[in-house]
């Protein structure tokens, strides 16, 4: 076995790291934290100019044909740097899904804009009564000649206020079982009838509710077959479960180690010399390493032309659950001082652990809840009998 990465991957990583060090300034991180929008237009444009939005794409799309290992290194470095790249993540997953399930017109019209960093997307899956049971989607699309008329409501359309398109799951058939009556669209956000209502969250991120009232969408914006939306959804989900959260786990532990090294208790002793603190930090470090390896295993399988459906799900589950447990443990470690928020004078670890403690709660929800992930692992991975 070989755990070091090939030289070309390390070389690429070095380039990425240098770029991020120069461009992901404290100001960029601070701005994302303040606005709750984890997308930075300037940074995004610079990344596009460097060709990193399209790095993993074939050369005919202007990409660099980077391998899954290189792309995993890129994702890892972006999250390690603290860069607000949620917008990049969503745009890439939509572009990848269009590459597989989109029409020629969509590939020619929409993908280049995304890869150039000019077009942003948001995801319109969840609804008030369709969360993990996303196929319960009730937003209706009814055909009217060359157009479709859409009516409904979507929850948690994060970045809708920055997006040019919404990747919209709709119901087009009421006569068939729920999974078979869905159709996917990529709807321009500037058509009449779309309304965005901001929603603020405990974690500080801004998300939205989007309302669709008699929205008229040309049929060329339909992705995949009529009533074939579920299979498009399955394609898209493969691109959503990755190991992005590992970088966040490392940042969390770095904040904790820095605090323990620089802070002294009431008797003047460094916290890093306290066995209780040392045990917590060491335990977190083990979980970080396991999360990292589970993510790299999935990337390694992809590099060997295997589809790491179950293994990617394992990485997502393990990393986000560990992230949450660790945030919980490390804010306890700070004691009462852990309560001061970022920006407050004297906040322990500059308040970042408190901020992470709130933010991390959502990571076991989006991209597939831990329960959905466990179901996939149990039934597809272990072959256990279906539970429902």
């Amino acid at each position, binding site marked *: 076995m070989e755990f070091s990465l090939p030289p070309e991957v390390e070389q690429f990583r070095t380039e990425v790291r240098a770029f991020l060090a120069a461009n992901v300034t404290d100001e960029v991180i601070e701005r994302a934290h303040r606005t709750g929008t984890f997308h930075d237009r300037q940074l995004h444009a610079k990344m596009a100019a460097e060709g990193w939005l399209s790095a993993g794409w074939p050369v005919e799309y202007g990409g660099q044909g980077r391998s899954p290992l290189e792309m995993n290194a890129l994702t890892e470095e972006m999250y390690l740097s603290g860069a607000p790249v949620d917008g990049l993540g969503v745009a890439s997953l939509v572009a990848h899904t269009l590459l597989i399930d989109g029409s020629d017109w969509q590939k020619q019209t929409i993908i280049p804009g995304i890869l150039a960093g000019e077009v942003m997307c948001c995801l319109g899956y969840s609804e008030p009564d369709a969360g993990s049971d996303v196929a319960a989607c009730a937003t209706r699309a009814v055909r009217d000649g060359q157009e479709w008329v859409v009516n409904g409501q979507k929850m948690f359309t994060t970045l809708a206020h920055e997006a040019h398109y919404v990747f919209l799951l709709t119901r087009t058939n009421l006569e068939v079982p729920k999974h078979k009556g869905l159709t996917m669209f990529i709807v321009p956000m500037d058509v009449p009838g779309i309304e965005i209502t901001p929603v603020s969250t405990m974690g500080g991120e801004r998300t939205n509710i989007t309302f669709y009232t008699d929205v008229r969408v040309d049929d060329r914006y339909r992705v995949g077959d009529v009533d074939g939306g579920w299979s498009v959804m399955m394609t898209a989900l493969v691109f959503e479960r990755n190991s992005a959260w590992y970088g966040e786990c490392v940042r969390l532990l770095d904040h904790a180690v820095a605090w323990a090294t620089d802070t002294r208790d009431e008797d003047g002793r460094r916290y890093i010399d306290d066995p209780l603190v040392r045990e917590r930090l060491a335990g977190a470090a083990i979980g970080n390493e396991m999360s990292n390896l589970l993510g790299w295993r999935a990337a390694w399988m992809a590099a060997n032309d295997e589809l790491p459906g179950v293994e990617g799900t394992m990485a997502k*589950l393990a990393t986000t659950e560990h992230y949450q447990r660790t945030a919980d443990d490390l804010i306890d470690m700070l004691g009462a001082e852990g309560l001061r928020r970022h920006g407050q004078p004297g906040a322990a670890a500059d308040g970042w652990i408190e901020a992470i403690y709130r933010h991390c709660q959502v990571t076991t929800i989006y991209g597939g809840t831990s329960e959905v992930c466990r179901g996939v692992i149990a039934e597809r991975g272990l072959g256990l009998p279906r539970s429902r």
Partner: protein
Amino acid sequence: MDLALTDEQQSLRAAVDRMLTKCSSPEQVRQAEPLGFDPRVWHELVEMGVPTMGVPGIGGAGLADMAVVARAAGAHLAAAPVVEVMVANRLLAATDREVDDAAVRTIAVRPARDHRFNLVPGAAVAAEVIGLIDQRLVVVDQPRGSASGPLNLGSAPLADVAVEVDVGGHPVRIVAEGDAAVAAFATALDEWRALTAQWLAGLGRAAFAIGVRYATDRRQFGVPIGSFQAVQHRLADLTTALDGATLLSDKAVWALATGDQMKAAFASMAFAAAGETAQQAASYALHLHGGYGFMEEYDIQLFFRRAKATCLVLGDPRRELQHLADELYGPAQDRG
């Protein structure tokens, strides 16, 4: 990056697996209790060259090959101190001693107290016990039949070893002293951690497989219990943790073999992670059996007892986290 075994390692794994399927069935493991040593398994291991496989100039195998053997031995609960022998022979060879015989050797993994190494793994059947005392690497000779150990949780050949003749012990030879002795012993102990992690990864996965099989076959309320989400979700968490710990164990072996800067930290992480997950997997697999899991005639209890016992040989697992912290953040300064 390459996470696959080489062709040679796959052949090695198949050979060890075949031998242990024949010689180390659950019934044979029971037969070897309470001592936890089966002369036939030992004989087969010697025939395969396992004890000295990692000794430079004799076996020619690397740590990664030893890891393959350790993993398979753990999965079959082989009644022989496989890891201890491999590590002790390498340690002894590092002091320029010849070790091309088939003697059972072991390593005292915890420091001596009052001139005794207590509960040394394999010591109840070992001819030689190697340990570090007062910065001296010593070999304690144990004439055949002289050692005996207490009945213990894991039915393992543990024994207390006295290291001075005048306190009723056996002849002691010093084979290295000073910094060289300390460094050689530390390397051996990290190898023991990483290879025992492999042993535990094998044990954990095998215990888990018993649990999954039982959950698939056992029916209650008219359906297999493995169709209940309460069961499925625990199993999903466990298989994920087992994979993570196994990857970490492989990385630890790789780090030791390549002299990676973080090798000692990875060895410690692997031991802690593989130990914890093996215990959890064996514990839940036992629980899935309901009352049957508590019966001696079911195999899962063999795994359950050994999972805990193998970890405790090195001491309180939370103290191992303090050791890991030393590796990651430097030794703690005196807090007065």
